């Protein structure tokens, strides 16, 4: 079962296009949405939430059509972002008073527990909250209306390492409930190395892949070798390659084919998500 099903969605802007993206976000798992800045991650999230409408294609969230059933969907979805658009002259307490009546499953006791846990004073004004505190607050809101799906737009960028780790632990706790799902957009891939089950990689408005993280990390490999091994045909085997005067380092998307091709003449390493993102975005030959 999928928490989100996006089918052939397109959205054109003057200088940017989301191009026929189809994406499934599996229910019960954490999916990391990665891509460089400007890849279309936030646009895709806005399309999921009905904040913008696609030129073509469909979006289903928790089995319901967006935007036809948006009220049902939003009752069950929590959105975590540091740009919440809250009324910043209000206190946390007033903002809660304003939001709570909209949700059928609002849990006041749970909200107060999260405030205490995050060390957020209800008397503090929204405009006095740091970026990290705003993330904590929007997380408290999302978790207090029993959201089954958390949509998180760059929640860890600009956060200190202590809270980043704390946030990741909280998300892991939320996943103990089987029906819960999370989609987590970020360009800080190390966060996803720790918690993501699936990785969806978006680049220049196109979906490069959406696979289980372990499958991705097993399929791709970093290949390092001397310059004498490279010719035009060999270079085509790489998703991206970085060449120096003493050798090369490149990413291949099929480790087993690369093993057959290079044998023991090269060193093969397991890539990180950051390596995969870097070489895919840079593509072709990079001279260092």
């Amino acid at each position: 079962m999928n928490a989100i099903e996006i089918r052939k969605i397109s959205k054109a802007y003057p200088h940017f296009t989301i191009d026929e993206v189809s994406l499934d976000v599996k229910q019960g798992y954490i999916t990391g949405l990665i891509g460089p800045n400007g890849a279309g991650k936030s646009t895709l999230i806005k399309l999921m939430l009905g904040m913008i409408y696609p030129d073509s294609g469909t979006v289903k969230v928790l089995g319901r059509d967006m935007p036809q059933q948006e009220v049902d969907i939003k009752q069950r979805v929590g959105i975590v972002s540091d740009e919440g658009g809250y009324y910043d002259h209000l206190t946390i307490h007033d903002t809660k008073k304003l939001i709570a009546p909209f949700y059928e499953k609002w849990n006041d006791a749970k909200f107060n527990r999260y405030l205490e846990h995050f060390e957020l004073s209800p008397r503090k004004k929204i405009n006095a909250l740091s970026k990290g505190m705003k993330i904590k607050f929007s997380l408290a809101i999302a978790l207090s209306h029993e959201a089954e799906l958390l949509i998180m737009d760059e929640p860890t960028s600009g956060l200190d390492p202590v809270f980043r780790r704390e946030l990741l632990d909280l998300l892991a706790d939320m996943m103990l409930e089987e029906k819960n799902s999370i989609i987590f957009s970020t360009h800080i891939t190390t966060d996803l190395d720790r918690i993501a089950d699936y990785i969806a990689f978006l680049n220049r408005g196109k979906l490069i892949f959406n696979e289980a993280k372990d499958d991705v990390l097993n399929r791709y490999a970093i290949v390092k070798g001397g310059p004498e091994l490279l010719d035009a045909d060999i270079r085509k085997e790489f998703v991206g390659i970085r060449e120096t005067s003493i050798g090369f380092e490149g990413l291949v998307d099929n480790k087993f084919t690369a093993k057959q091709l290079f044998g023991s003449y090269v060193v093969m390493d397991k890539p990180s998500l950051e390596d995969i993102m870097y070489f895919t975005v840079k593509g072709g030959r990079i001279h260092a």
Partner: protein
Amino acid sequence: MLNLLRKDFIALKSSLWISVLHFVIFSVTFMPQLDTSLYFIGIITAFAALSLGTAIDIKNNSHQFLITLPIRRNQIILAKYASAVIYAVFWIVVSFAVHWLANIIIPELGKPNYSLADIIISIEITLVLASIYLPLFYALNKKGATVINSLFIVSFIIFAQPTTYMINNINESGFLNQLTFLFPVATLALFGASYYLTTKLFARRAI
């Protein structure tokens, strides 16, 4: 929709004094000068309150937040049209009450005896203005909406005097009394059409 009205009240709680201040300033300015001060004080204060209620939603890109709540976009619009009616009725009734009191306490001001028809006409004029203002506000981006807010308030100040003169003339000819009962139908039709247009404009807008 009730939750959205409640939301507006909570968000505007700390700014309610601004509407009271508007009312006091307009009363002090217009009451001694204009026979039709009932209209202007009520209408301008109601409109300024509506403008305050819309401005607060664009100040922090709060449409971005509202759109994530479990409500439909047209409910956001409906709540603003309902607010326009509430502000119009409230401030015009307050204006009527203050004029009535002024007649008793300071008879030398020489204010005419206003009737129910005057209240109805004032509410109708406010709703006609809201019908023009709200589609413009929701069609435009943050910058444009701020310009529209300022433009409407400045227009009120500039056109207050000539419009008063015109209403006075019409009033004296008795034509206004005939229109009092024609206006509601036209106003309601315009208000409904304006709501329909605004929902259409806002429905496809990228937030």
